């Protein structure tokens, strides 16, 4: 599967707490307009390549306090109709991996609704390689196996542009689940 | 030269020294916080919070410790003393916090807790900081070049001892200068260094006045300069005048009493050209023109007199206002005038009934009335009389009061407003408030002595208080920092049981003793005279200013700066004072070695470029025994790393502000190869004795006063072996055992409490300045009741508070009475008055380079300008400026501040020259004037040299400079360094 996806801004109104939803209500345009997704299945293994435009990459925080690094997440659902924009729901999880430009290891993600993201140790059997060139990030994730994806055959992506101060719910996301069926 | 011997960098040096723990502490102390076991905060045991349960336990573990010790900042020239708990983990003191175990002195007065300041609360930053010396170093490049090799202590001792012995053999002991102050304590450190260098016959310069701290005005007026009780006495005043002091910055632990007094109903007035951190809390701030304080005081004195609010009985009894002065000579009318062979010391008052002069009560040589009294005669303070002298001459005499009143006449509010740049109404309100007060009090700090004519300002201020009867009255008077004597300094600490008492001038002491036995003088006066005699005769004490004038290459500069100010050039006064033996000046012939216990002479001296050019090359040996690197250390030959304040036993020098003894525990062992000074001196004494015996040296000369026996110096240092190199605890206990002020105190108990309230204010030596024999550790410590309650004469030439000085030099100069004289323009006639303030962020140069402190400033020295001045000069906030006068120029960044008076430039002092481009600070343009009159001597009263009482000093506050924006394109040290 290979696909060019137009991303949308995750609706700030969905952010938990009283602040982000209101303070960032005007943030309706995605910081990352689009992304290219390429998914290849080889037996049990999955290779997911994600690339997106990024003119000003942020590779580390350094000792600064007001910078945010570039990041991306690839998730799959528990059910075919798991709610993506809310990061799942109680008893209906979204799971996947989270990549940050300043970290070697990936972080596992498990969420069952807004504000419930748990960060988990990096899942076994998944490797990331990333490269920034020609004003684009190219992130390649190699899963030895991803049984949840085997079942659901759909992913969603989220991208955070550090230079645009994306973080948390301030992100560009796929408008919904993307089928990875070949 | 072998590269490996050059000190490469501090980090690798730490490895060399093999001190992993301390090194870790220095670079990343904080990392250790999370790894400790814990305990209960009860008592002084360890604190062990719960095992790691959740993230909150990270914080709980951070506030934990293995043990707690007591400490304070002993070998530090800070007038405060504050008890601290030292929290120790894995052998490192991770932080300190005030113990706060003081009690209120008496009901109705706030307590002293929790004394401390931001410096004391992070001394560990200095102790484990980047300026700390850790191993003995020997210079391998040129002086000041920054090239060092690490040497062993044994090598250091051997080379230094041999050099010092050579110097004494070739010349004499006084060719070695041991820079006495301003760092000192009352414990083993002062005892160790003081005793060693005293026995070597080394020159011991008293720099009290040199650094501008001596209240000469108080000495002239009261006979003693260090006046003042405990700081909670401030709370009792109803009219508090902070007059040339900034307690909110320089007396941080005590400042609260001022603002609490305000809540208690007192009026708080701050007189300062600067809208200081103290002034912001005042009821009234008087933005006086710099250097005109005497004028304001004279107007106030006149107002007190004019309004009849003078305390007449007090004035008659305690002051010189009723004393008679001969109008033909200007001298006091004495017994010698009235009777052939009469006493020149015996002064007189007018007896209206007998219509003739009679001896003044309390006058020296008035055996009938040795004490002050107005019971039999309340002498008039105004009047002019014709009298006949014993030789038949008819002369007119007048009371000091009459002369003074006439002298005060011109000081109307209007005239005073002209001089001080204050409004008439402001002066009137102040004078009204002062004159109506029941307990007026003036806080006048050491910093009030840094103008050329500071003596005049303080004489005038004291006059106002005397007219109100406030001096020696509880809750009123003059606060200029009093002292409590202990055994560790002036008394047994200095002399010890060294067997030197026999060297005193026993004839003189015998006379004194007879006076005492006959009740002509008090026990305190006897002690006072004895102590001063001892320090004069048993040590090669010199006053610093005279020594500097002789050796630092500044004579021409000062003669030029002071040209025309007095009838003769400064150096003529100096010459006369030396010829008449008024001022002791050592070394006599040659200066060959300079040894300092961290006193940083090249930082504190004025015109240090002259010292470096003229004096430094004469020195064969420069040693800095110090915990940290300083500008002086950078120009030394040997750096001997000393233990820090928490690493050795000590007794903090005791000022009266806080009448508790403050003990310093050796809470942790000295880091790396550092050693405490008692031991360093012990080891040096042993090495010197070994060499002397080896060379079979005869008794040598010190400074012509006493023989120097190097073959027994170690035996005497150690009291015939009684005190070993590690016996600082026993030495400390000995001091405690030898003073009535510390009666019953034990080191064992102080290890637990850190402090103990003094049992008395006056100890065994000459440094008791409280003169309150009733105070036994209970109640607010008020002072000078010896004179006001017990009516003993004041320690002046007349036995009275003295406002008329009839010394010929004073008469010649027209300064016999308190008067206002304009501040001379030192450095030339330039538009800015450069004024030094004591720093909030350092105690002199300690903490000055500490990153934690610098981050709360601007990282670099700053010169404060009023924003309007800065705008006119087009110097932005933070920009570099060039500051210059005829003595030179230096660079400093400008800071804007509305507290600054236009045409004044303030710096907060003690920046090291190496914190400036070219290593040149404001000191390089500050001549440090010396008032010629302070070289005077030859009187039995207050005008005679005595340690820390009467001596010439230097005055930095008269310096004038030009300030201009640094040209951005300039090729200079700043551009070379790539700085902007």
């Amino acid at each position, binding site marked *: 599967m290979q696909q060019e996806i137009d991303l949308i801004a995750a609706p700030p109104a969905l952010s938990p*707490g*009283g*602040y*982000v939803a209101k*303070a960032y209500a005007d943030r309706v345009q995605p910081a990352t307009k689009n992304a290219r997704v390429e998914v290849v299945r080889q037996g049990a293994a999955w290779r997911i390549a994600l690339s997106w435009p990024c003119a000003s990459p942020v590779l580390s925080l*350094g*000792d*600064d*306090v*007001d910078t945010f690094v570039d990041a991306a997440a690839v998730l799959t659902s528990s059910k075919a109709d798991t709610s993506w924009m809310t990061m799942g729901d109680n008893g209906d999880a979204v799971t996947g991996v989270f990549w940050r430009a300043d970290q070697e290891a990936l972080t596992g993600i498990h969420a069952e609704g*807004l504000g419930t993201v748990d960060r988990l140790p990096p899942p076994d059997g998944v490797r990331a390689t990333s490269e920034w060139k020609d004003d684009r990030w190219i992130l390649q994730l190699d899963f030895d196996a991803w049984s949840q994806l085997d079942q659901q055959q759909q992913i969603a992506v989220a991208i955070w542009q550090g230079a645009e101060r994306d*973080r*948390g719910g301030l992100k560009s996301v796929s408008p919904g689940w993307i089928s990875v069926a070949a | 030269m072998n590269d490996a011997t050059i000190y*490469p960098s501090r980090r690798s040096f730490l490895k060399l020294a093999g001190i992993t723990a301390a090194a870790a502490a220095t670079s990343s*102390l904080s990392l250790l916080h999370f790894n400790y076991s814990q305990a209960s*905060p009860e008592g002084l045991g360890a604190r062990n919070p719960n095992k790691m349960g959740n*993230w909150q336990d990270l914080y709980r573990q*951070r*506030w934990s410790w293995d043990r707690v010790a007591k400490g304070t900042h002993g070998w530090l020239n800070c007038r405060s003393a504050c008890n601290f708990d030292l929290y120790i983990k894995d052998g490192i003191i991770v*932080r300190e*916090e005030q113990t706060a175990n003081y009690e209120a002195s008496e009901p109705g*007065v706030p307590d002293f807790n*929790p004394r*401390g300041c*931001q410096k004391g*609360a992070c001394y560990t930053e200095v102790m484990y900081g*980047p300026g700390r010396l850790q191993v003995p170093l020997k210079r391998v490049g040129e002086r000041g*070049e920054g090239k060092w090799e690490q040497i062993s202590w044994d090598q250091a001792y051997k080379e230094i001892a041999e050099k010092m012995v050579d110097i004494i053999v070739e010349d004499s002991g006084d060719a070695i200068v041991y820079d006495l102050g301003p760092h000192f304590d009352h414990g083993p450190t002062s005892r160790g260094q003081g005793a060693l260098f005293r026995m070597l016959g080394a020159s011991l310069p008293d720099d009290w006045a040199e650094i501008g701290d001596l209240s000469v005005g108080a000495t002239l007026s009261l006979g003693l300069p260090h006046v003042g009780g405990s700081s909670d006495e401030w709370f009792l005043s109803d009219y508090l005048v902070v007059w040339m002091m900034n307690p909110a*910055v320089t007396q941080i*632990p005590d400042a*609260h009493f001022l*603002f609490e007094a305000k*809540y*208690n*109903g007192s009026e708080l007035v*701050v007189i300062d050209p600067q*809208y200081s*951190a103290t002034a*912001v*809390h*005042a*009821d009234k*701030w008087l*933005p006086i023109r710099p250097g005109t304080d005497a004028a304001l005081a004279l107007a106030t004195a006149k107002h007190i007199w004019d309004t009849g609010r003078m305390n007449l009985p007090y004035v008659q009894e305690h002051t010189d206002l009723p004393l008679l002065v001969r109008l033909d000579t200007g001298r006091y009318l004495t017994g010698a005038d009235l009777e052939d062979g009469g006493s020149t010391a015996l002064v007189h008052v007018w007896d209206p009934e007998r219509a003739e002069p009679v001896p003044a009560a309390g006058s020296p040589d008035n055996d009938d009335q040795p004490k002050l009294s107005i019971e039999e005669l309340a002498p008039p303070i105004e009047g002019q009389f014709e009298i006949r002298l014993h030789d038949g001459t008819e002369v007119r005499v007048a009371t000091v009061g009459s002369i003074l009143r006439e002298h005060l006449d011109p000081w109307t509010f209007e005239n005073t407003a002209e001089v001080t740049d204050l409004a008439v*109404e*402001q002066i009137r309100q102040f004078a009204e408030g002062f004159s109506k007060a029941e307990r007026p009090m003036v806080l006048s700090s050491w910093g009030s002595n840094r103008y050329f004519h500071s003596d005049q300002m303080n004489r005038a201020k004291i006059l106002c208080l005397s007219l109100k009867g406030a001096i020696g009255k509880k809750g009123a008077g003059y606060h200029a920092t009093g002292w409590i004597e202990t055994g560790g300094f002036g008394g047994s600490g200095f002399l010890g049981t060294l067997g030197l008492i026999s060297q005193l001038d026993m004839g003189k002491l015998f006379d004194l003793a007879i006076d005492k036995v006959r009740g002509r003088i008090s026990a305190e006066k006897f002690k006072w005279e004895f102590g001063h005699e001892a320090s004069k005769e048993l040590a090669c004490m010199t006053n610093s200013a005279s020594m500097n004038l002789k050796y630092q290459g500044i004579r021409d500069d000062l003669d030029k700066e002071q040209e025309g100010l007095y009838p003769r050039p400064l150096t003529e006064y100096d010459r006369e004072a030396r010829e008449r033996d008024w001022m002791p000046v050592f070394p006599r012939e040659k200066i060959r070695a300079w040894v300092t216990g961290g006193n940083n002479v090249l930082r504190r001296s004025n015109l240090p470029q002259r010292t470096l050019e003229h004096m430094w090359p004469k020195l064969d040996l420069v040693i800095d025994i110090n915990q940290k690197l300083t500008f002086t250390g950078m120009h030394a030959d040997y750096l001997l790393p000393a233990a820090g304040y928490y690493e050795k036993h000590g007794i903090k020098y005791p000022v009266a502000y806080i009448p508790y003894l403050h003990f310093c525990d050796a809470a942790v062992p000295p880091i790396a190869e550092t050693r405490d000074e008692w031991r360093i001196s012990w080891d040096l004494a042993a090495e010197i004795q070994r060499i002397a015996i080896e060379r079979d040296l005869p008794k040598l000369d010190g400074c012509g006063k006493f023989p120097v026996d190097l073959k027994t110096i170690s035996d005497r240092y150690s009291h015939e072996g009684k005190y070993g190199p590690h016996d600082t605890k026993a030495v400390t206990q000995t001091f405690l055992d030898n003073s009535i002020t510390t009666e019953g105190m034990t080191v064992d108990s102080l290890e637990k409490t850190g402090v103990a309230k003094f049992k008395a204010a006056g100890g065994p030596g000459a440094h008791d300045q409280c003169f309150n024999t009733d105070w036994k550790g209970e109640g607010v410590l008020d002072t000078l009741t010896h004179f006001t309650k017990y009516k003993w004469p004041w320690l002046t030439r007349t036995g009275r508070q003295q406002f008329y000085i009839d010394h010929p030099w004073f008469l010649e100069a027209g300064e016999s009475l308190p008067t206002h004289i304009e501040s001379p323009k030192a450095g030339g006639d330039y538009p800015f008055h450069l004024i030094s303030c004591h720093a909030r962020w350092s105690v002199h140069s300690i903490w000055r380079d500490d*990153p934690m402190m610098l*981050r*709360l*400033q*601007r*990282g*670099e020295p700053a010169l404060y300008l009023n924003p*309007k001045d800065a705008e006119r000069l087009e110097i932005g906030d933070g920009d570099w400026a060039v500051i210059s006068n005829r003595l030179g120029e230096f660079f400093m960044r400008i800071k804007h*501040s*509305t*507290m*600054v008076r236009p045409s004044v430039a303030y710096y907060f002092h003690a920046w090291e020259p*190496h*914190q400036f481009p070219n290593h040149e600070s404001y000191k390089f343009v500050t001549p440090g004037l010396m008032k010629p009159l302070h070289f005077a001597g030859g009187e039995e009263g207050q005008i005679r040299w005595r340690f820390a009482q009467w001596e010439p000093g230097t005055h930095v506050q008269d310096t004038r400079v030009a300030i201009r924006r640094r040209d951005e394109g300039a090729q200079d040290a700043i551009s070379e360094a790539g700085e902007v």
Partner: protein
Amino acid sequence: MAKRQIAMVLDLNKCIGCQTCTIACKKLWNTDTGTGYAYWNNVETLPGAGYPKEWSGSGGRTSDGEVKRGQIPTLDGEYGRAWSFNHDKVFFRSGDGGEKKPWLRPDRKAQWGANWDEDLGAGEYPQENHYFYLPRLCNHCTHPACLDACPRAAIEKREEDGIVLVDQDRCNGYRFCVEACPYKKVYFDPQRQVTTKCIFCLPRVEEGVAPACARQCPGRLRFVGYLDDEEAPIWKLVHKYGVALPLHPEFGLEPNVYYVPPMSPEKLDSEGRPTGESRIPMDYLVSLFGSRVKDAVKILEDEREKRKSGNPSELMDLLIAYDWNESFALESNRKEVI
């Protein structure tokens, strides 16, 4: 809503700007690399831009109660970096051909710091120049903007004492709390990549020991205790006499740190005559503490007048704090023994 609320009162008439509080806090909590720039407690000179620079009102709420978007201050420009210094180079020059006489200075040009405009103040000398010191710490607000801002619910206001804490495990370092706090009292630690803030010295308070900033204050200007403890100074100063006021009440967060407003010497007229009016403009105090500050100042002045004429005043006695230990009314099984 917490069941009880711990609170602090700071008497600005006693603050001397010595920053012992700043150091007490710094030494205890913020000596790690990532928090070098961070001062949970700082003291700033007002009027002034403060720390971080121009912090006031970035975030919080409008007067209508609407959430305002805030900014994250920058390290060099607004907080001020914890500069390193060149001691080694200055003291131990090894002839490596570097600067001949390097002087001791920060490793980079200093642009701002936690106390940058110390003693700057405002107004024409000598008529009306003025300044005062304002110590600041987290206000442990009743309605904390930081708590509201965290999409992770990582910020908690404790039931038992109302202390506001950032859960160091849950925090993801998004820094919405840093933005949202109009007092700018939440700090990001770039090393640990979490935000941190004043914990009201939680481990000490648990043991009945006052926070380090309060207990180490030599100016004796801080009172600590529970707002509902009618026996203790806090309640009396805040409620009984109404002289202790929160900073910027208009931010709508109901701070639990209160200030006794500063009095100041008399202004002078153009001829230098005293005017009887305080140097610090009342309008300025109102802009900081709200309009109630007028009453507070009046009460302080009236009570002081009482005392001047020899009458008792409980308020003055409280502010004098005769027995310093009584400034801290914390419930604990332990006394002040540390």
